[in-house]
């Protein structure tokens, strides 16, 4: 009965349905007319999309863009800090024209696949310090010789220290491992926590004591290039393995961990920033990114930084650096000329040096002025003399849960197990990615 009734009126129903569908479709199409793909050049004004990887400096770049647009009325720049849209942009074949990215394994993947254009013949490329440019190319170059990214900001990390506590205890900035240990003992004897530990956030252990100790003891870049060359047939006994190279560094990590406050295992990065800013410890194994957080928590705190000495030869002391921002232009952009003009503007000394001075980082330019920010002056000698390394953690592909391994090593103190696990993980990744 029901089916019969429906059957009789089916044509009408279908028509109504189609009408409804049509209406819904029209409603959905309405906004399209407003925001569909617009040609990037309209009335002689080229629109550039600029994807920027640091949400905290959006305001600075808004000002830079304003200045740039005033000088270049034929270009309009749209800033986008939604880095998660970069891969979708590639999938859409409509990526942003100019991109900034932090330089590590993940970005290197894009470089090796030729996502970015070659910038080597841009005049500004010559103004970059070649040593810093090498940090970028150390991750691999497309076609073996292209310059896919120009460094914009170099972050140098070491030990952040509280100048007032150092002065009160009469401690000088240590230049050797023994001096550093003696300083820790002095603070401990005075009832001051020598190093504030934030072990709950395992990345702070990775970029902190693991990278510092590894980078100070061995040539990290050289180690990883040999390890990569060895490929999937890596064994624990091989001369390229973690087990064969990292052994001497590990006890020093445990020594550092032992100078942390009680309960470091339950403190995270935010706790650490709040506590260190209030003077609850003398030193803090963090990079420059923490400085603004520390000052935000206590604007009167007087901070300095020094590279962690891991050996007893002061000349060995190196800072951990990373190319925090590097400028790239996507290969297939239809607005190459405009994009190059924008990149050139960003690398003008007044823009790039101001940015780095404001954000406690180092300018990549050859003739950059000496840093004046007292928070990072202690690191400038290492940077200008080229005594630096990129953190060991940055060489790992994201599929290796490295930070968890570092954390369990610090808790369990089983170095052999830790290094064996790293060898094993590295071998498995190499097997997967072997061609």
């Amino acid at each position, binding site marked *: 009965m029901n089916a019969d009734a429906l059957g009789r009126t089916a044509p009408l129903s279908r028509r109504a349905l189609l009408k409804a569908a049509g209406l819904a479709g029209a409603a*959905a199409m309405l*906004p*399209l007319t407003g925001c569909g793909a617009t040609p990037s050049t309209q009335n002689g004004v080229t629109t550039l999309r600029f994807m920027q990887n640091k949400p905290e400096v959006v305001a600075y770049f808004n000002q830079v863009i304003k200045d740039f647009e005033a000088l270049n009325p034929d270009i309009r720049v749209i800033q986008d800090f*939604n880095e998660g*849209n970069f891969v979708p942009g590639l*999938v*859409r074949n409509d990526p942003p024209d100019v991109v900034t990215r932090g330089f590590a394994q993940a970005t290197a993947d894009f470089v090796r696949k030729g996502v970015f254009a070659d910038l080597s013949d841009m005049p500004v490329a010559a103004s970059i310090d070649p040593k810093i440019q090498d940090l970028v190319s150390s991750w691999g170059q497309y076609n073996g010789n292209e310059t896919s990214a120009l460094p914009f900001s170099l972050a140098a990390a070491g030990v952040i220290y509280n100048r007032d506590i150092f002065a009160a205890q009469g401690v000088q900035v240590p230049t050797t491992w023994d001096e550093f240990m003696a300083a820790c003992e002095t603070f401990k004897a005075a009832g001051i926590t020598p190093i504030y530990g934030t072990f709950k956030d395992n990345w702070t252990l990775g970029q902190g004591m693991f990278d510092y100790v590894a980078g100070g003891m061995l040539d990290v870049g050289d180690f990883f290039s040999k390890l990569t060359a060895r490929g999937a047939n890596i064994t624990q006994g091989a001369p390229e393995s973690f087990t064969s190279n990292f052994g001497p560094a590990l006890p020093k990590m445990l020594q550092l961990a032992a100078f942390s406050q009680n309960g470091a295992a339950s403190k995270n990065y935010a706790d650490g920033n709040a506590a260190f800013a209030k003077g609850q410890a003398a030193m803090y194994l963090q990079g420059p990114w923490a400085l603004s957080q520390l000052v935000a928590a*206590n604007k009167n705190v007087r901070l300095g930084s020094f590279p962690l000495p891991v050996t007893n030869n002061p000349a060995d002391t190196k800072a951990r650096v990373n190319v925090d921002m590097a400028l790239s232009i996507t290969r297939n952009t239809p607005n190459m000329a405009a994009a190059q003009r924008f990149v050139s503007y960003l690398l003008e000394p007044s823009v790039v040096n101001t940015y780095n001075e404001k954000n406690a980082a180092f300018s990549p330019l050859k003739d950059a002025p000496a840093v004046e920010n007292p928070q990072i002056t202690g690191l400038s000698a290492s940077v200008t003399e080229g005594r630096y390394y990129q953190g060991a953690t940055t060489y790992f592909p994201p599929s290796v849960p490295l930070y968890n391994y570092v954390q369990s090593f610090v808790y369990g103190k089983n170095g052999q197990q830790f290094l064996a696990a790293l060898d094993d993980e590295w071998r498995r990744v190499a097997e997967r990615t072997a061609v």
Partner: protein
Amino acid sequence: MTASTLSKPVNNTNPPRRKNLSGRTRKSSREGYKVNWWLTALMLVASLTVLLPLYFTVAMALKSPDQIGGTGLAWPNPMNWENFAAAYVATNFPRAFMSTAFVTVFSVLGSLACSSLVAYAIARNWNRKFFRGSFVYLLSAMFIPFPVIILPLIKQTALLGLDNPAGVVFLHVLGGISFNTLLYIAFVRSIPVELEESARMDGATTWQVFRKIIFPLLAPMNATVGIFAFLGSWNDFLLPQMMIADPALQTLPVVQMLFQGEFNTNYSLAFASYLMAMAPTLVVYILAQRWVLSGVMRGAVK
């Protein structure tokens, strides 16, 4: 939100029962009305799962950077109301709000319209193979994890010129169809066919039957589906983040990423803006509480 829907009924149902029973004899009121202190205590503790995070959100939103830290339980003094203004300006709140509202309103309306129509067609043609098959077909979509298909979807929507909020609406409506249809079909089946037959006797077309008889009777289920669709699209992060190409049309959850750098999180501004983004959900919940509760129950038994 779900935890509060669980803890609320207990708080609400107690007072009316007391009122009803007070009119009866003393004996029965004693027997019938007995405070279960253990359960009450348990529920009070359970309600903390909602109240405590809410307290943190409000307290955080009012703190200045130097008040952050410690346990976070301390109430900020003085309160820093400028956070809201700063977050409002930084996120360009009105624009992001309109974009989110556009996505949400059309997702809800689309979900209600499409899913109920589909469910009605399938439920009333259950004796036909094609409709039974299409039901299974729609249901099978529930077994495909969304992240697996997101990149192909991005490619496809870009080709169709839908890399904007309208595309997000489309995908929300389509993505919801399988689950919503499941809910609706169970409900449509419980509506007596005789109602429709009597309407047909009066000369109603199928469309009129749906519009005038079925759709109004679906009201409780409409509430359920509407609430799910509302929460789903208002809070959605992944789809807008990856699909909307133009940053000017980005939705609130994505724009709020502004406060989270890799190592620097501006907690007070972040929470101020979360609170502003949460406000519509809270208002809708308070207004629609009755239907939320009945709606949750409605979906529980199929």
